[in-house]
């Protein structure tokens, strides 16, 4: 598609509020739901980052040590339960807005009294997937950091993770998943079936979303980054989702800026 692709989506177009956000629509649970969840997530993240010890997610990988020493250290600094809680808050903050366009479409296809329950079920399904991959994602993060630590190459490992996430932008699997995101469900049957079906739809949407955004999230958590970079990543992923035709090259470029900034933080750490 290089040709048609010759067209570019101007960056300012991506930043313009999408057409469906208008006064009347803001009362819509499909907008209110994910936005509330996101604000809640950010509030928790900010609160924790201000508290003593800060966010484990945001720490730069520690100095060189043996693999097991590093693992123990990481788990000592922030117990697994705390890390998983942080991941959950991060998923709420960063990922809930990504569900918004799909939930608006779902809501428009539901009977009015069913909109709120259907949207909440779908959102719940979506977040369950994101929280569910928290454990493996954190295990991977801890392991990657420990490998970096053991080989005295925390920066290299962070860079490798970032490069993998950038290459992922061009993969067919990711592009296919992005396209799947645009399929709107047609909920049918009784109220119970519509609500249950919405939950399943949310699970599917969450899975698709982890395929699209998971690698970038993982790369960011391996490098360890502060809230500003997390906010920047959210912004890029959301802008990408709202583009009528995402451009893998552009996405990789924008993600590259964020992920490489995070890596620079690791490389330049004292």
């Amino acid at each position, binding site marked *: *598609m*290089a*040709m*048609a*692709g*010759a*067209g*570019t*989506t*101007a960056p300012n*177009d991506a930043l313009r509020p999408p*057409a*469906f956000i208008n006064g*009347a629509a803001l009362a819509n649970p499909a907008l209110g739901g994910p936005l509330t969840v996101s604000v809640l997530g950010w509030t928790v993240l900010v609160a924790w980052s201000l508290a003593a010890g800060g966010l484990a997610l945001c720490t730069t990988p520690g100095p060189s040590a043996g693999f097991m020493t590093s693992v123990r250290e990481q788990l000592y600094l922030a117990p697994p339960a705390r890390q998983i809680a942080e991941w959950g808050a991060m998923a709420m903050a960063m990922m809930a807005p990504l569900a918004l366009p799909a939930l608006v*479409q779902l809501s*428009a*296809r*539901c*009977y*009015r*009294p069913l909109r709120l329950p259907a949207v909440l079920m779908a959102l719940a399904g979506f977040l369950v997937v994101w929280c569910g991959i928290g454990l493996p994602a954190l295990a991977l993060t801890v392991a990657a950091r420990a490998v970096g630590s053991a080989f005295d190459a925390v920066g290299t490992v962070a860079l490798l993770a970032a490069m993998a996430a950038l290459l992922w932008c061009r993969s067919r699997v990711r592009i*296919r998943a992005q*396209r*799947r*995101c*645009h*399929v*709107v*469900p*047609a*909920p*049918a*049957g009784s109220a119970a079936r519509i609500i249950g079906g919405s939950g399943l739809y949310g699970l599917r949407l969450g899975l698709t979303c982890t395929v699209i955004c998971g690698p970038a999230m993982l790369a960011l958590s391996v490098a360890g980054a502060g809230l500003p970079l997390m906010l920047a990543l959210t912004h890029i992923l959301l802008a990408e989702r709202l*583009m*009528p*035709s995402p451009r893998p090259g552009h996405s990789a470029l924008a993600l590259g800026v964020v992920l490489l900034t995070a890596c620079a933080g690791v490389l330049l750490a004292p």
Partner: protein
Amino acid sequence: MARIRRSVYDLPAGDDTLDWYRRAVEVLWQEPISRPTSWRFMGAVHGNPNFPPLPDFPGSWDQCQHQTWFFLPWHRGYLATFEAAVARTVRQLGGPDEWALPYWNYSEDRTINPEARFLPPAFREQTLPDGTNNALFAPRQFAPGGDVGLRDQDVSLAALNEFEFTPAFSFGSGFGGPRTGFSHFGQSNGELERAPHNVVHGRIGGWMGNPNTAAFDPIFWLHHCNIDRLWEEWRHADPQQHTNPTDGLWLNDVTFRLHDADDRPFDFTSADMVDTTQVMHGYTYDTIPQPIVVAGLQGGTEMSGIPPLEPELAGASEGAIRLDGARTTSRVVMQAAKTRSFTESALPTPERTYLRLENVVGKGVPADFDVLVDLEGDSEPPLVVGVLATFGIAKASDPDAEHGGGGLTQVFDITGAAERLNLTTEDAPLLRVTFERVEQRAVTEATMVPGIDPLPEPATGEASIEVGRIAVYFE
């Protein structure tokens, strides 16, 4: 001086526009496929039947824009480059300098032109009177005397009553189609694209019935020329209301590439396509579009400055419906009494009622279906509300395509039928929706130009079609 495109049925006696067209088609078929203005290359730009890709032209084929607001501007550019290539060939053959593509106005009043629904005579026969091959013939459904089976309802111009090119809500598709990025095949058709465009494709059938072969049939270009003319007609009918999108995404942000008469790349955006006199060589249509009287009050709310209400679901089928056989009946459970939000607003009854066929997915080239509605148990005959056109459904259902294979969504305004059936009243009737398969005739095989390799068969496989949900919306 801009070229004037004329109605094929109004060409004066002795006019040689179509003779030159036929001769040019023959020449263009013989050009090597690697030449961008060859018949095979230009046809594959719309959809590639099964040609191996040309390494020198990556991304040049499978470009046609459907189910998107780029449908009209892309095809306008496509027609202009085609017209330029044919005109160049005609000139080289010793013909007139400024050959212009004629259009087939199949919607013309039959009291004025009794033949309007029939293929123009030059396209009907496989051989010419002298026994040689007619390059304007192509594999199509059996059409004795040019009668491809087009009925009045198939060529309805109801699309011209649409007020918006692209509607504010993602609900309908407006005149021109929904807001999307580059979209080879997508989700919902603009009204003009659905009918008469898609319906005419399906009724002619054969090559025309499949997007991957459609543009190889010479009638394709006269059909699309008419669709392009209807865009002009729509705009001229009400210059204040009927406006093209002003969104930068539509105007400038997506660039398409085709090739000009010299086989050089021709890049354009929709903004380059809005004024026909500025499109490549420039052209106009023979009839100055007359303002038409718009039936109904569809635009009433828009005109009074009140934003339109988002249509709301009032009833839906219990699940997906597979269309097997000649006739399939399904039910829509109306939930109007429980769900009507307009009772909360000042509106006592909905202004419009829509029947929407959502997530229609399919394989191969299924037939079209007439869509009829009635109430269960009543003695009245069902009312025809439109044609479910399936042109391009396989591409729209492909999970690898731009829209992830969500299929087609088609909207029919059934306000009149809903009133007759009391669908908008409190005591929620059960709406019966019937799909009647439109007759598919055998395709007449044909050799357009002797000695030329036949077109590779597109992989279609067995046809199937399923409607994801039938829904009734009130507005």
